[in-house]
């Protein structure tokens, strides 16, 4: 597909990644507009279902961005989030979808530049992978939601 613009959802924790995203903004560091952020109090809140549903509803890639290892505001939410991301990767593999469509990244609140870099890299990864599940849904009719 030419000119494929991936749709990407990033679940960001309030304390680190979301702040880093704001920081990227205040430093005017650009990253692909493909990335849309959903704020959660902690990545430990992000359920595997949320990742799956995002793909189902039309995202070509989803990632979870939490605090650095050992720095989680709530002790270990980021570790749990990572385990769930891995579970979803496994499910995707079983389904024949690319596990790279989901990812876990970690950053501190001050890492605006890194947020942007991650967003760029992830967007590129997904761009290479091509359209995700949601794009196929429309080929016959609308998917059940």
């Amino acid at each position, binding site marked *: 597909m030419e000119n494929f613009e991936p*749709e990407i959802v990033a679940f960001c924790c309030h304390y680190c990644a979301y702040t880093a995203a704001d920081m990227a903004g205040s430093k005017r560091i*650009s990253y692909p507009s493909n990335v849309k952020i959903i704020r959660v109090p902690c990545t430990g809140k992000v359920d595997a279902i949320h990742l799956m549903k995002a793909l189902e509803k039309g995202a070509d890639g989803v990632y979870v961005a939490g605090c650095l290892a050992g720095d989680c505001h709530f002790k270990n939410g980021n570790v749990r989030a990572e385990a769930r991301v891995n579970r979803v990767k496994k499910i995707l593999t079983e389904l024949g979808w690319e596990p790279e469509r989901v990812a876990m990244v970690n950053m501190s609140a001050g890492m605006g530049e890194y947020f942007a870099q991650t967003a760029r890299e992830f967007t590129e990864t997904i761009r290479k992978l091509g359209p995700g599940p949601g794009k196929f849904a429309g080929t016959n009719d609308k998917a059940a939601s």
Partner: protein
Amino acid sequence: MQNNNSSENTLSPDRRVLVIGGGVGGIRAALDLAESRRDVLLIDKAYAIGGLMTQLDRTFPTNNCDLCTVSPYLSQGARERHLEIKPMTTLTRLEGEAGAFTATLVTEPRYIDTDKCTACGECAKLFPDAVRVTPGLDPRAPTCMRYPQATPFAFSIDITKVADMAALKKVCRADAIRDDDTRRESVVDVASVVLSVGADLFDPAVLDNFGGGKFDNVVTGLEYERIMSASGPFQGNLVRKSDGRRPKKVAWIQCVGSRGINKGDVPYCSGVCCMYALKEAMVTRERFGDDIDTTIFFMDMRTYGKDYELYFNRARDEYKIRMIRSRPHSVVENSATQNLSITYALEDKPVQETEEFDMVVLSTGFRVGEDAKNLAGVLGIDCNQYDFAATHPFNPVLTSKPGVYVCGVSESPKDIPETMVQASAAAAMAVTDLPVVPVDLQTEDLFAPERDVRGQDPRIGVFVCDCGFEIGGIVKVDKLLADVCANTDVAVAKAVGYGCSSESMAAIETMIQENHLNRVVIGGCSPRTHETKFQDLLRRVGLNKYLVEIVNLRDQTTWTHMNEPEKAQAKAARLLQAGIAGVRKNRPLIDHTLPMSQNALVVGGGVTGMTSALTLADQGIKTYIVERAPALGGLARSLRKTIEGEDVGAFVQDLVQQVTAHGNIQVLTRSIIVDHSGMPGLFTTGIQTGVRMNYMQIDHGVTILATGALAGRPAQYGLGTHTNIMTQLEMDSMLEDEADKIQAMEQVVMIQCVGSREKENPNCSRICCQAAMKNALRIKEISPDTQIFVLYRDMRTYGFQEEYYRKARDLGVKFIRFSLDQRPEVVEADGSLSVTTHDFILGCDIEIAADCVVLSTGLIADDETTEDLALLFHLPRTIDHYFLEDHVKLRPVDMAQRGFFLAGTAHSPRTIRESITQARAAAGRAQTMLAKKEINLGACVAKVDDKKCASCLICVRACPFDVPFINAEGVSQIDADKCHGCGVCAGECPAKAIQLLAYEDDQILAKLDGLFER
């Protein structure tokens, strides 16, 4: 000078604090007092508060737009119940004594009834006769508002510019114009006064060599800010005044009017100009093009604040700003091009250079104005030789008159963070003249009763800010609004200008009410900064505060995609749709509260810790000081004299006595903090105390970190290898105890920046230049014939310290500059010392025999301790291991973790005087928190659906805080009081029986739906 012992005054419960000056300092002081539930009257001679900061474009070191960071404070100020603001008002008389003053105030006519004015702007539109309010540039109408988020939110009329009053009155539909308005005098009882009128900026027109006020393209720093500002005369476009073209070559000249001896100059350093010049140069290149050549002419680069050196390095290395160490001789205008030629001499070149620039910015500093001088007279306070308020040597916010406190530039030149700190300190001192227990203990602000929206179909209002150009300049707000109207349940979709301005807030309130909206989406800046503000708005109109969604159109959309407006537009539309989809699912929620512990923990028993503790204890707060050493006093115990000549030992001893004797202070020496739990307002901290490490726990609501720093002792220049190579601290002692040794010295060499401003410790230690001057002057006093050489990189005797630098030069102290690639070398031969260094002026290496080498070693962070405590308390640190405050400018003593405050050298290197101010400030900020009496835990807690719960224990095991348990009914129970709201349990629950309120699954899924709706 007054000595501050609060209790003896005749305190009257209904008295309040008068804050004079509505700049950031005055606002901070007033807000601190109001948050501590003390009544405050804030007066300002201007028709809207805000002061200098509201005129700045962006502020260092974050390079954020100032208006948006400060405006929430201003409008918050407008709504605090304890705070009354009187603009256009001055103090004309002050009688009585501390605790019982009578103040006479005069309010100038505004000719507009602020209660009636809706700030519609019709009057301003129709009478745009230009007047110049800000020097040189700002075109203003006779009716004007200073900036879009002004407080109070109303216009004012300059009566002298009005030709036809009747016509003017006619355009006002609100009938707010009052031509009969007159000067009014009022008398109020006040307990104390905080002076925060700041200072004027120097007008360079009085100088004849730089062309200030003479040439169109020579502007002051402030004028340059206005030119760049979105709300400025060129709508944020950087252009030359002469021809409206963008300059390609801009030069800054530092110290214009400061550090001088010429006519019109003042001798002191204005302290802020180096940073603002760097900022302006950086913003210029960042916003208006990398191809603009930026050059700064300076004498010493004074980036002495916390992390300022890093900022300077960034300016030089990343932004490629040219730095020329020279004070230019003159600026000459080319009459054809209006370009400007600067003539200057370089240190190492005998001939003068001349270079042409498109624009020249004069970095002008502070000057006390006539109004301020008069006010000092009215207040009856002493001033120093430069007409700044004279203050107590160990407490810079105390004036000579009891009950009158000073902060900000009124005290001495300083930047915004320092002003903020001093303002909080002044507020904390002003409280001491009030009764200890505030009379008014009413707990919460009153809001309208909440409307029950359950069962109602959503009626959503979508309001989008343009935030000046920040949003509206990138995306088409109209188009966004048209898009959202496709949602049938969106009842209103409106653009609201600066959404956080009082005007817009009022408009939104009206629209919510008129349209019976039950849900609101705000498109604007980050919810991190503005959610609370809009939540309060909802409460005012009787809606539950959780019925609003903030969509981050600015920080995460227009700012990041400013070069791709179409993509930004598309993303903004998607995000708004997600917000709308999300808000449909929002439910009214109730916040949970707990009573707050009224105890305070102060970590560190140095001067800072003791001062904080005393300030709190005087207010009836039980305070624990935890100090690891066997005795109180900290690093100050090894210090003998301040640069002003004060006896530090006596001061510390007095402080220790006061602390030890205080009934509200429990001192725990030989004590180490080992564990910590709880939440802001209800902490429990475990301590090992005493020689045998006895364990105990204390409960406290707030924590002040005053753990200090360590005296640096890097193994450089032979320190530790020779008795005559010593630190400034050791020299300080020698001067007191072994003056005879000094007299025997013929030559003394001082080396600056030892272990500071280097790769391992990149920041400036701030205190060493003044320490060197202090000791140099004392050596000269004891032994005038001793030759002193100071080898330096930049002399950073900021503010009034400049005076000591000048004195040292006058006394013949020799200053030789060195650079890092050519550092001095200390050589020992046969027991005698000499120092070799490169002399830039002579262009060769020189050798100086030295009886004594004194190293200015500065301070280094106590990495081990701050790391330990940071892990324990979950606090952030800077890369050089100091604690990191929440916001370097606006919250300089608050930590990001609520309930933690920071003061003294644990924050960054600073003098005793500065530490004391910060100590008072931290104590003041802590009081504002304790004043709340209860903790709001928010509504974001996990909730179990008993019917779905399978009692599987997964939540019990997964919770990082051990909150869930299986109750007597056999199902999981999560107490809202204990839940931290992370949602881990909700994410793991296999029965989907747990939902995290405010982040429920259907809300998240709805947002996803919104993002992908086609």
